[in-house]
């Protein structure tokens, strides 16, 4: 970098001669002054409201500028009290929540019980179009503010009551023992009055209660966050600020990192994985994240819901050489899956290595036999549907198909079926228009086994796109939710997971890792279980 400054001036001189413009620009992120780091970002898809942000890029910002009742430990993923002083319940259905004293928003307003209740009511209300509204569906009165059909008949949920400045009660519509542990999710953070009184102004420059405050926000290109010096929590930022820069292409971000213009990239492009070790050495991180990739099946289709279908699905699962695909295509940034949750839960938290057993082990001979016993592939061919626009899905779908074709000794047994855009792919898979297996990825909202099972496999659940339905599974999940003893709840969830396995409701493929690379200026970089960098712990210089 230093040796280059000379040359840059030379280029600038040419620039001046050619275009007769000033010689601005230049200078790397180091010139931004102080211990501020720059990090890659992409434009959030939805407006930056807490209950409206359902992807990592928006979540990144919320994680910096907000703190909720609970917070998931960046290392272990365990839910720990943050703003909550205590949760009191006798029946796992009625909760009294006390908020800690001394917390304020960065504009000076006090965080009170009302800050939470107002925020939750806003998030649940149908007229606010919040995409995470269903997170509030356990609270009594949700069906009035967010009816499945027609106009809403109430503005606030009857299950929420403010008792005094620091306490409020929550009444759920069913027993849910791990409810407090779900409250670390971004949708449950408190909101200041400014959010309601001057909504447009708030969106232009969000105000929260986290370790960072937004200094400026240029939509679509850059957000500057600075350390909030009066932050009352223990996890205050160890740097002076973070500048998030929007990149259209993660390859450009990586190039900028190599050139010293960017400090942190948290999405290493697949094409660079091969050389990332030699480029960055030990300034590269590859850790498990709460993401699992599976192949879902159209259980609403008769062809996939016959007596022999389970065997066909088991056969397909055994025909996939996960080990080889994760090694050659993903360079070890994904790990072959052996259950339906994620290693980030930890064995006590519900992850059970090897739960899938032999059904997830590669054995072409057994695969062929199982599929034949099950009556063969429906229509003689499986088409794996995926979206071709992002995430290099084509690569692995082709590899999975190759693996299946080799196992069955038939090169027309499996083909990929690309769909142009993610939106179109989602619209086809959520309206039951697909007639073969399709790509399904799941990123956890909170580190609980419930989050890996209920939304995906419970009858008519929000992400049960294949419309799988099994009474035994539903009963086990209900029982596990009502269980007050954590160990017993985990055990019951694992029993439910065994039902998923015995029916091979979906084929688990691999657990996805989060990756990050950083410049020499940074140290103490880590990723949390949601594969978001833990910005407040990063040290600069």
């Amino acid at each position, binding site marked *: 970098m230093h040796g280059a400054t000379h040359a840059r001036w030379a280029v600038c001189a040419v620039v001046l001669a050619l275009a007769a*413009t*000033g010689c601005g*620009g230049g200078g790397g992120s180091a010139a931004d002054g102080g211990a501020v780091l720059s990090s890659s970002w992409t434009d959030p898809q939805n407006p930056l409201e807490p209950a409206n942000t359902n992807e990592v890029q928006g979540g990144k910002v919320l994680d910096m500028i907000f703190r909720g009742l609970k917070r998931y430990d960046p290392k272990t993923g365990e839910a720990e009290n943050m703003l909550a002083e205590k949760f009191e319940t006798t029946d796992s259905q009625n909760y009294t929540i006390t908020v800690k004293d001394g917390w304020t928003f960065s504009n000076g307003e006090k965080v009170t019980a009302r800050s939470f209740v107002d925020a939750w009511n806003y998030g649940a209300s149908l007229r606010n179009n919040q995409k995470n509204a269903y997170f509030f569906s356990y609270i009594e009165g949700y069906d009035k503010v967010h009816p499945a059909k027609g106009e809403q008949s109430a503005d606030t949920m009857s299950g929420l009551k403010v008792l005094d400045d620091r306490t409020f009660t929550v009444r759920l519509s069913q027993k849910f023992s791990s409810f407090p542990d779900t409250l670390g999710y971004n949708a449950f953070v408190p909101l200041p009055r400014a959010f309601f009184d001057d909504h447009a102004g708030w969106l232009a420059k969000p105000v929260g209660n986290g370790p960072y405050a937004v200094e400026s926000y240029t939509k679509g290109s850059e957000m500057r966050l600075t350390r909030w010096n009066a932050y009352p929590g223990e996890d205050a930022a160890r740097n002076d600020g973070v500048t998030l820069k929007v990149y259209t292409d993660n390859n450009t971000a990586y190039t900028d990192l190599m050139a010293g213009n960017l400090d942190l990239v948290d999405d290493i492009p697949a094409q660079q994985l091969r050389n990332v070790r030699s480029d960055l050495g030990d300034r590269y991180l590859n850790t498990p994240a709460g993401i699992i990739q599976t192949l879902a099946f159209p259980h609403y289709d008769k062809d996939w819901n016959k007596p022999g279908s389970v065997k066909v699905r088991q056969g397909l699962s055994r025909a996939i050489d996960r080990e080889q695909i994760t090694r050659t295509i993903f360079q070890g940034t994904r790990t072959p899956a052996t259950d339906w949750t994620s290693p980030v839960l930890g064995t006590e938290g519900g992850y059970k290595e090897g739960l899938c057993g032999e059904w997830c082990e590669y054995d072409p001979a057994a695969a062929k036999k199982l599929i034949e016993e099950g009556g063969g592939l429906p229509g003689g061919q499986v088409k794996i549907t995926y979206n071709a626009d992002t995430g290099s899905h084509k690569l692995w779908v082709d590899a999975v198909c190759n693996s299946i074709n080799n196992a069955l000794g038939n090169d027309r047994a499996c083909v990929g079926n690309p769909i142009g855009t993610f939106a179109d792919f989602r619209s086809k898979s959520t309206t039951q228009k697909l007639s073969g297996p399709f790509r399904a990825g799941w990123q956890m909202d909170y580190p609980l086994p419930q989050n890996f099972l209920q939304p995906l496999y419970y009858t008519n659940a929000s992400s049960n796109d294949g419309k799988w339905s099994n009474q035994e599974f539903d009963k086990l999940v209900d029982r596990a939710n009502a269980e007050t003893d954590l160990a017993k709840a985990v055990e019951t969830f694992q029993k439910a997971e065994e039902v998923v396995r015995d029916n091979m409701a979906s084929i688990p493929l691999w657990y996805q890792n989060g990756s990050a690379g950083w410049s020499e200026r940074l140290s103490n970089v880590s990723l949390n279980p949601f594969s978001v960098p833990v910005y407040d712990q990063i040290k600069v210089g």
Partner: protein
Amino acid sequence: MGQYVVRRLLQMIPVFVGATLLIFLMVNVMGDPVAGLCGDRQCDPATAAQLRKEFGLDQPVWQQYLTYMGNVFTGDFGTAFNGQEVTELMSTAFPVTLRLTIVAIAFEILIGITLGVVTGLRRGHPVDTGVLLLTLVVISVPTFVTGLLLQLLLGVEWGWIRPSVSSAAPFAELLLPGLVLASVSLAYVTRLTRTSIAENRRSDYVRTAIAKGLPRHRVVTRHLLRNSLIPVVTFIGADIGFLMGGAIVTERIFNIHGVGYQLYQGILRQNTQTVVGFVTVLVLVFLLCSLVVDLLYAALDPRIRYA
């Protein structure tokens, strides 16, 4: 002349309506955009219905189109899914792309025409062969290869420039992207100018001019070049419209937040409002460019007159 311009402007109306209708229909065929807003899970049906209603997606396509066009004439291009007004997106994206286009066109004119004149006057000369070969290479290598290669060499290996353009995108930072964007057209401009100059060199009026005893530079610039520029001007005029909308690849490589970036994102997120809005403006730019080109003909060649 005035009558001609009015007639041309009137002709733009059907072209404009047809182009926007086509784009509108094409984006619609791509399917339901709301499903993509909720990540890998299903939007809850009530919220999805509410969103569809808000964006007018619950109405038949023809009605959506009419409402949209009605709004466009009042200056309202709708709202993108992230809550930003499309006009706001345009006001940040178009200046950036305009600067990029200006840089690219400047390169085309300066380098392209100069090389064209030099080679055209020295046909068969080693300089001519060399430039011809060079243009052949430039034309046959795809833009993204040139772009990535130069970015890696100048930005990372030698550290002369920043590999990416900052969000303010000043002219100085747009030089390399502009050169990359212009490279292929530049090669075409060189070849067009060269052929045209070589052809006109033997024409009667050039011989007359030389016979009159005019200095060589005056013959070349006033007589030869001016008459040879007509095909080149046509090409560059059409290229302005093309560069404004076709910079998707270059803008992605250098992380320029211009029109290409907004279009790319709009298409990925199936954001009808963004895509149709931007394409509508691009159609207008294209139409105006071709009008200006036609008017320039008359200025360059006195034999052409518009009644």
